């Protein structure tokens, strides 16, 4: 009987499945055993349905691009017939009646959805501490956070309990946990991947994307995920693209922008030195680093927290105890049914953002906050438009620091928000971003992963994957594993 070795790439696993060295059911069973052995220390999985997945694996078509490959799914993305809660108590008892388009497309490529992964409630957070269910621990130091909001998706890949996972990224929620856990995470361009079946947080910013252990695996998942969907009017009709097409090409002639606003004082020194070394490495591979400016960077956090909170307060109005999920037993009338259900069902961070979002949209404040933020968003977008006339991609740290300890920022929401400073402008501008491992920083005596962020112009994912792959092949960072 074949068994699956943790940390094997999708590309290699596919070969093992096709040559019958491993069957899809054996793969799933050995993965399940790995989860049972390792995940109690990590807490990436909320739950998993092995029996359903085994049936699907047994029927998998191995000739398809992802035939028989199990993929873990963030708890915000619908898998038909499975519980779905966005890690919130307000969705207690809810089962997804249909597949998200991203999941349907994975299935069409032969993949098997397996396991619900932990996250910050409604994707609001940078540490996964806002989950209503459990903490997820960083595989490199279990006293530290895995990042967020897709903390479960990143920790599962980094601890070898998933080959690949889906996450969602509204302000860095794929890239930041990928960086902090030491795996690869891609936020596609807004409009690349359908959001149908993703529980909405901030609709003008949300995008589903892959977390994987190699850059090539992210390209393989993108081949399945990307495409226009009639159920999401913001998904775009684009020519079919093979995201692996540029993988393996060299970097000669590419210009890589280094934004001076992303290399400021206050960054963790080990992050700074790892990223500086990575830029030198990329240069030695033939690309030319060019200093650029993104002058409105300092406003990104302010703009983001107004727009995201405003959109969230509107999106979360649907959770009222009437049609799905939890309902308060204390209600006397319809008004108190809403207010009490929401009081019982939402956690603190979600309530805080609903209040903030309601404030910036309320009469008398709309122009001063929401409208002004949308105008500054235009300036931030123009910064990137300008930069991409001069460079093919932009390089920066994914996060100014490595994984912090549990509880370190929970009392001060603003401090938590500022942790996203390098990732949120990407979502405001709608462009694509890739995070991949670029070294380690010693923090309090522990080596913690550092993420390198590559940003690309709209629909420039293939170029980012090419640069990421070339860098990855020239380094060994992605081969280091946490001791579990």
């Amino acid at each position, binding site marked *: 009987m074949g068994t699956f070795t943790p940390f094997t790439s999708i590309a290699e696993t596919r070969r093992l499945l096709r040559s019958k060295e491993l069957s899809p059911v054996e793969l799933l069973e050995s993965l399940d055993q790995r989860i049972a052995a390792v995940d109690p220390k990590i807490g990436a999985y909320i739950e998993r349905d092995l029996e359903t997945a085994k049936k699907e694996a047994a029927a998998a078509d191995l000739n398809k691009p992802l035939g028989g490959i199990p993929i873990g799914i963030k708890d915000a993305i619908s898998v038909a017939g499975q519980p779905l809660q966005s890690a919130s108590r307000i969705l207690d008892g809810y089962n997804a009646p249909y597949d998200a388009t991203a999941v349907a497309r994975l299935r069409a490529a032969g993949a098997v959805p397996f396991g619900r992964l932990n996250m910050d409630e409604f994707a609001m957070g940078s540490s996964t501490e806002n989950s209503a269910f459990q903490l997820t621990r960083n595989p490199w130091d279990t006293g530290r956070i895995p990042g967020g909001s897709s903390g479960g998706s990143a920790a599962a890949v980094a601890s070898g309990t998933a080959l690949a996972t889906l996450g969602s990224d509204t302000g860095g929620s794929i890239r930041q946990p990928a960086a902090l856990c030491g795996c690869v995470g891609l936020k596609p361009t807004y409009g690349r991947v359908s959001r149908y079946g993703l529980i909405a947080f901030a609709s003008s910013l949300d995008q589903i994307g892959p977390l994987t252990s190699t850059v090539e695996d992210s390209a393989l998942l993108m081949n399945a995920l990307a495409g226009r969907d009639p159920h999401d009017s913001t998904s775009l009709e684009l020519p079919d693209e093979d995201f692996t097409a540029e993988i393996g090409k060299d970097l000669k002639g590419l210009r890589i922008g280094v934004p001076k606003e992303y290399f400021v004082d206050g960054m963790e020194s080990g992050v700074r030195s790892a990223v500086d070394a990575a830029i030198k490495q990329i240069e030695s591979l033939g690309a030319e680093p060019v200093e650029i400016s993104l002058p409105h960077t300092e406003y990104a956090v302010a703009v983001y927290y107004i727009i995201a909170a405003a959109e969230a307060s509107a999106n979360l109005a649907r959770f009222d105890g009437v049609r799905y999920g939890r309902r308060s037993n204390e209600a006397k009338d319809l008004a108190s049914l809403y207010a009490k259900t929401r*009081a019982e069902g939402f956690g603190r961070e979600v309530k805080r953002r609903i209040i903030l979002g309601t404030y910036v949209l309320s009469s008398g404040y709309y122009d001063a906050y929401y409208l002004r933020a949308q105008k500054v968003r235009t300036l931030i977008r123009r910064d990137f438009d300008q930069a991409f006339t001069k460079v093919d991609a932009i390089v920066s740290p994914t996060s100014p620091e490595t994984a912090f300890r549990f509880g370190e920022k929970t009392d001060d929401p603003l401090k938590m928000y500022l942790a996203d400073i390098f990732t949120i402008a990407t979502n405001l501008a709608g462009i694509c971003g890739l995070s991949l491992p670029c070294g380690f920083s010693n923090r309090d005596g522990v080596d913690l992963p550092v993420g390198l962020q590559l940003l690309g112009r709209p629909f420039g994912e293939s170029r980012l994957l090419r640069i990421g792959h070339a860098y990855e092949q020239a380094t060994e960072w992605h081969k280091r594993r946490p001791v579990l």
Partner: protein
Amino acid sequence: MSTDAPHHAVDVPYLARLARLELTQEEIDLFGGQIGRILDHVEQMNKLDISGIEPTAHAISVFDVIREDGVTESLPKATILENAPHNANGLFLVPKVLD
């Protein structure tokens, strides 16, 4: 956490009513201070001259996305009602609205 009083004061109970969200007194006090400090940070946007700048609602603009007006299958009613906290006769049940 900063303990300085924020410059911005927000009427949290009023906003909670607008949002149909019941809050405890502790949450009202906590959020008042925290949101005030977030708004103090947001204040920096006022340094910018935004006259003549168009707002961005969506980063990648798409206009007039119109689909064919065709009849397609919907999810079965029973599947949807299975998720309802209370239902009967194919309807969602809620507390009495009118006496």
